């Protein structure tokens, strides 16, 4: 069975999504268990594959039994395997936490909700695993469509945000498709490895450069890279909790993964290296993304919106790191891709818990939360530390590599932007914590109640089914941080191409 892990990774959730849909019509109570089974199998497969890849090298899988350039081929090296594992785990843990929120808001639509949820994960996992440029497009559309629907389900202006996301997302996906079309015209192939070989003699051609730009710009739209980020803050802050904590951490990260995959495995660093002007421009765009993300986040008075803008900034980190053009920067980008998935997940899940309890995430709603929801806030604090980049949480280490990459490349703007964004993140989160820590005492006397214990505010913690996953995510941040050494050594270094110094 182990040789079929790549197929299981994607098809198990697909099959279970269909079963969830059927169960939604017949036995709605079975939806969540089936979805859990589906993602559980996918997680097992992803983890097993990671182990396999680490012990015996990359694995390939011929779907339909056809050989690579003709059939669709899955190729999993360390990079895919680890991203797939992260995606699967985050999706699974988030699903486990979603029960209460879905029941509260969409009880009569559990079936379709979980169906789309699992389908979204299917698409994401497929994009990570696939080695075929067109197959990637189809999977991209699956996860995008589910994303539009899940986001559009939210209240208030969510449908409009979602429709805007749909427009931009469609433009992005179409650009990607067009780019693949350009590549197909000049090479005649769709398989990534095959493309890499066929493109080598064509590096000077304008068509290839255009194809590359189209693909990259298309992906930027999907990952909300500044200045194409406008859809993200509205969409992610309006989405229902479980959807936000699925899409915000994973969607952008998987798009970054695809970009890195394109840069490393299809166009190769030799080609990217020739695009010096583009490289410079992207470097500064990344700086702008980081700074703009930080400044916009500062202007927000709502936790979810603030987090959404932080995501915009984080995308700048990864794109910038990947385009620095050196090994350390790329390592940082990949590492941050993994770390950011988990830390964004942690903070969005915490925001979901808060929303679940107090039905709002505006700053003024958060007063006294440290008393009311100590564990949730503790997890949020850990997530915040990771985003700020305080050791031993994982955010520090990826930032470490990114800054080193910036130094190595002599890109001082990038280094300064990273530090600036860290500082702004300190302000952002401690402003928030200050509100959550201080407000309720303002009306009372300075020394609080004169009994030492017996808290003034009743503790109203999020339900255990949300709290446990949240704790797992928070602990994961520290564990991931401490695992940086092996992660870089065994997972990231082997996939760095030799052309990258």
């Amino acid at each position, binding site marked *: 069975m182990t040789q079929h892990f790549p197929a299981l990774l994607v098809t198990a959730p697909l099959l279970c999504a269909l079963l969830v849909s059927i169960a939604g019509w017949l036995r709605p109570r079975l939806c969540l268990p089936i979805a859990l089974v589906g993602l559980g199998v996918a997680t097992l497969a992803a983890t097993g594959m990671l182990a396999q890849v680490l012990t015996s090298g990359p694995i390939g899988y011929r779907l*339909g039994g056809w050989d690579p350039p003709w059939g669709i081929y899955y190729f999993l090296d360390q990079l895919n395997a680890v991203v797939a594992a992260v995606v699967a785990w985050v999706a699974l843990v988030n699903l486990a936490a979603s029960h209460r929120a879905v029941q509260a808001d969409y009880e009569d639509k559990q079936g379709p909700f979980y169906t789309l949820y699992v389908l979204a994960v299917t698409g994401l996992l497929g994009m990570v695993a696939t080695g075929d440029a067109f197959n990637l497009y189809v999977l991209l559309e699956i996860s995008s469509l589910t994303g539009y629907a899940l986001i559009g389900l939210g209240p208030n202006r969510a449908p409009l945000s979602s429709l805007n996301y749909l427009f931009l997302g469609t433009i992005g996906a179409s650009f990607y498709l067009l780019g693949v079309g350009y590549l197909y015209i000049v090479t005649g192939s769709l398989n990534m490895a095959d493309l890499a070989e066929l493109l080598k003699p064509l590096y000077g051609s304008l*068509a290839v450069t255009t194809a590359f730009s189209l693909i990259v710009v298309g992906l930027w739209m999907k990952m909300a890279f500044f200045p194409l980020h406008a859809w993200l803050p509205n969409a992610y802050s309006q989405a229902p909790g479980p959807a936000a904590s699925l899409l915000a951490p994973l969607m952008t990260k998987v798009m970054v993964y695809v970009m890195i995959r394109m840069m490393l495995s299809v166009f190769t660093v030799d080609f990217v290296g020739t695009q010096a002007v583009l490289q410079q421009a992207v470097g500064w765009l990344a700086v702008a993304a980081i700074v703009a993300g930080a400044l916009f986040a500062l202007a927000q008075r709502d936790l979810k919106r603030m987090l959404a803008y932080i995501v915009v900034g984080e995308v700048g980190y990864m794109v910038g790191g990947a385009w620095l053009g050196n090994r350390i920067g790329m390592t940082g980008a990949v590492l941050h891709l993994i770390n950011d998935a988990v830390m964004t997940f942690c903070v969005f899940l915490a925001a979901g818990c808060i929303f679940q309890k107090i039905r709002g995430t505006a700053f003024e709603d958060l007063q006294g939360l440290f008393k009311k929801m100590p564990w949730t806030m503790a997890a949020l604090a850990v997530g915040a530390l990771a985003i700020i980049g305080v050791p031993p949480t994982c955010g520090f280490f990826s930032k470490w590599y990114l800054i080193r990459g910036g130094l190595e490349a002599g890109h001082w703007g990038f280094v300064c932007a990273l530090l600036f964004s860290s500082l702004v993140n300190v302000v952002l989160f401690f402003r928030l914590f200050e509100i959550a820590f201080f407000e309720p005492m303002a009306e009372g006397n300075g020394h609080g109640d004169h009994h030492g214990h017996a808290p003034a505010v009743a503790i109203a913690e999020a339900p255990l089914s949300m709290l446990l996953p949240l704790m797992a995510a928070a602990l994961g941040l520290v564990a991931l941080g401490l695992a940086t050494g092996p992660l870089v050594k065994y997972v990231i270094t082997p996939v760095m191409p030799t052309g990258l110094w």
Partner: protein
Amino acid sequence: MKLISLALVVLLGGLFMAATADFPDWGDPASPASVHVSPRYIEKTMEETSVPNIVTAVLADYRGYDTMFETAVVFTAGVACFLLLRRRDPRPGPERIYRHQATGVIVEMRHKPAKEPAGEVFARIDDDWVPHDLIIMNVCRLLIPFIQLFGLYVIAHGHHSPGGGFQGGVILGASIILLALSWDLRTAMGRLSEAATGLMSAVGVFIYAGVGAMCLAMGSNFLDYEALGPLMFVDPVHARSLGIFFVELGVGLAVMATMVLIYKNLASEGRLDQGL
């Protein structure tokens, strides 16, 4: 805004056009696209899958995995429309309007009747009801079976002629939509209930993925139809042909049901009681 976007778009278009300079000439048989991967499909399809329609063979076999997700995309859209639009709260305003069939007198009921008036005497009609055109109603009623038959033909004959699961499925779905258009939504719903469309769209994709999983269970790679040969007592090449047929059936089912599902939800704003 408009001017800026116009300038942007013109600029972009110029860039794209410039890039076409490096393309092979339009229709050039020696272009890379025509000589690298595709020759194998043209030359080997017949002997490997015994399907003369190369597009069908590539669609459902060589790149069958894509097509599975393509079906899943349709399914996703159906579920998405349902999730976004479907609502069960009753429509505000006049509850229900009935028409006395014999006299044409229209009755408005303020409260939901405990029992639906008998269909023969009273027929329920839409708020904005206009008398249906007899010719249209009856011509469509006559046409629909033929449309459906054609749809089935398109699915079944996809191996040999243009067509296949998608086209056939859409045609089948369109026949139901035509019914809804020419009669009314409730009639169409009577033929194909909501739960039926929902289940059929899932089952359709499930057939596709299930065939793939079956191959997996037989110890072969996912969607490698050759593995099904022993089950159906045919040689591998025919197994491929039959496998393609099965998945096309699944696609047809899923697409038909999904198209109807999307239409129903769009046309009735998710209430499924009355619509276009």
